[in-house]
């Protein structure tokens, strides 16, 4: 099977691969984003769930594009689409950018092909989604008044208030780490069971 090997800049093939896997990543991400509206707890655990379920597309992309820039591009494109759907805040922009750069750095240090390196990169990448509920803590009062102005009901907000304790902040950050580790392990299993046999990695 043709494989993009070696270093160097991204070629047409790599760019197309990134585009396709970004599409899948985005779809999974978006479904959970909408479900986060159902209950505040879902929203806080959202980065964790996303990490758990996007492990396979991320790892597959990593194994197909072993070059600099793949993670950053995936993050940029997903972020842009979020912006277009009107769910973007400055906080998520910052965390997204930071996590992509971190992920990219980890990958380039680990030489792109090792499982551990990709796992670490995926943890960094997954932490980017924490920027979505993070304003609850960062700009607590302003954020609460902003979303109640936007028509969020009082009960959603009181539940949110109760949840915005330091302990939950820890949960918010731990969830994607655990999710990412579990997601990567599942994808490793899937690789051995299916993808390597089928010759696509």
């Amino acid at each position: 099977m043709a494989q993009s090997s070696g270093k160097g800049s991204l070629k047409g093939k790599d760019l197309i691969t990134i585009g396709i896997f970004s599409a899948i990543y985005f779809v999974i991400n978006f479904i959970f984003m909408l479900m986060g509206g159902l209950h505040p707890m879902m929203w806080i655990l959202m980065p964790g769930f996303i990490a758990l379920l996007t492990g396979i597309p991320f790892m597959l992309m990593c194994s197909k594009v072993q070059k600099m820039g793949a993670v950053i591009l995936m993050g940029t494109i997903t972020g842009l689409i979020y912006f277009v759907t009107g769910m973007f805040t400055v906080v998520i922009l910052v965390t997204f950018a930071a996590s992509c750069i971190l992920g990219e750095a980890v990958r380039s240090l680990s030489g792109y092909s090792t499982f551990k390196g990709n796992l670490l990169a995926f943890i960094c990448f997954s932490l980017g989604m924490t920027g979505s509920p993070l304003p609850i803590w960062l700009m607590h009062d302003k954020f609460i008044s902003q979303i109640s102005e936007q028509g969020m009901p009082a009960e959603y907000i009181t539940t949110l208030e109760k949840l915005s304790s330091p302990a939950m902040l820890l949960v918010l950050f731990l969830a994607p780490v655990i999710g990412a580790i579990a997601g990567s392990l599942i994808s490793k299993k899937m690789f051995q069971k299916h993808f390597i046999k089928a010759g696509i990695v």
Partner: protein
Amino acid sequence: MSAIRFDPRTKLVLLFMCVLCTMFAPSLTYELFLVILAAVFGLLSGQYRYTFFGLIAYCLIFLATKLSIYHLTGIWQAIFIAFFGLVNKVYPCGFMAGIMIATTKTGEFMAALYKIHMPDSFVIPFAVMMRYLPVVKEDWNSITDAMKMRDVSPSLKGTIMHPVMTAECLYVPMMMAASNTADELSIASVTRGIENPNPRTCLTKINFSVKDVLAVCFILIYFIIGLLIRRGLL
């Protein structure tokens, strides 16, 4: 009435303004009018079917939101309003983006992105992604059909009873398909010279005209009205 063709860059500006409008939307009624404006744009661009159904869907969402504000109480109200609040935020932009994707050919869109000096490494994945999103849905449908034939139903019951198996049956074919598409598509586009370092050319002429300026003016005025209402000046 024949469809008017807008410049792809105008559509990008309109979409961006749409995002700003929903971000600063002072009320639900304001959003309803925003969707109506987007619908007018859709009709002008000749997307009658899509616009019609999109508008009806939004009216239903609008009514449901109103109903849940005034007629529900307690926890159900909380759940529904929170959910509809999110849908209301996303819908106008999503609707607009749908019209944009339906009326713009990928080639035109890419040419427009190159005209605003976006680099190759951004334009190509972006264009591929836009094109691939509908394919994900198609793949999903065929996979679930195939699963039904083999008695692995992707229903709620099946998901709860065999979560790992359901996930495996959904994920593996999806990823295989994606991976194969990536290979095939890149072979096809390399043959067509996607790696050519020279600037890309496009047969369709892309330039601004009066109608583009008018459309942008319209949405700008609407945005300013929204800001004024928000400040309590109107």
